[in-house]
């Protein structure tokens, strides 16, 4: 059974600071996904990482994937208030093309 663990689950940071959210998964997976959810809204896709060593960046967010360590990171650079949201990572068990397993989410609050 694939398990996905995120940490931290709660993160309060000041504007301008850097931080990293970690996503570990328990069995072999070739793909890792990051989503953002604003309060009362649905999930919005941020990044899709499809191979070992993949790195993707969008604005102040950068995601990477290390399949050997079964680890993905979401790095936040110089946080701003607009990044406040819940961030989810999800993995797909190898051989299961369809079913994403999600972590419990990281609630990020960026304070002025």
């Amino acid at each position: 059974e694939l398990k996905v663990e995120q940490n931290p689950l709660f993160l309060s940071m000041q504007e301008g600071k850097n931080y990293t959210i970690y996503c570990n998964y328990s069995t072999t997976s070739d793909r890792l996904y990051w989503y953002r959810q604003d309060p009362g809204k649905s999930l919005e896709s941020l990044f899709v990482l499809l191979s070992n060593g993949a790195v993707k960046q969008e604005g102040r967010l950068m995601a990477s994937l290390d399949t050997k360590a079964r680890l993905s990171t979401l790095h936040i650079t110089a946080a701003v208030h607009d990044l406040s949201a819940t961030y989810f990572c999800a993995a797909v068990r190898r051989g299961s093309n369809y079913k994403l397993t999600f972590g419990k989410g990281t609630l990020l609050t960026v304070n002025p």
Partner: protein
Amino acid sequence: DVKVTQSSRYLVKRTGEKVFLECVQDMDHENMFWYRQDPGLGLRLIYFSYDVKMKEKGDIPEGYSVSREKKERFSLILESASTNQTSMYLCASSHARNTGELFFGEGSRLTVL
């Protein structure tokens, strides 16, 4: 842009009622999913479908059934709603031969009294 539309944003039902949650996608995706989201538990997969009339149980199928009579539409059915089914229900779809990226609807918040 992919559009996944869920028929009801908010529903209030009584224990024992039959509940239908409808989801429609307009991008010809083969795969469709129903998740429920609860505080502290994240998203959990209820059922998914990889083709018309095909379905497969997810991690928490008990108390739910699904129907996929047309490619664009995937329905979640609660035969006899119970209070522990009060939750946010999220429908999603994906292309079978692409990256597996899910596209989500806006969600249906169900309260069972």
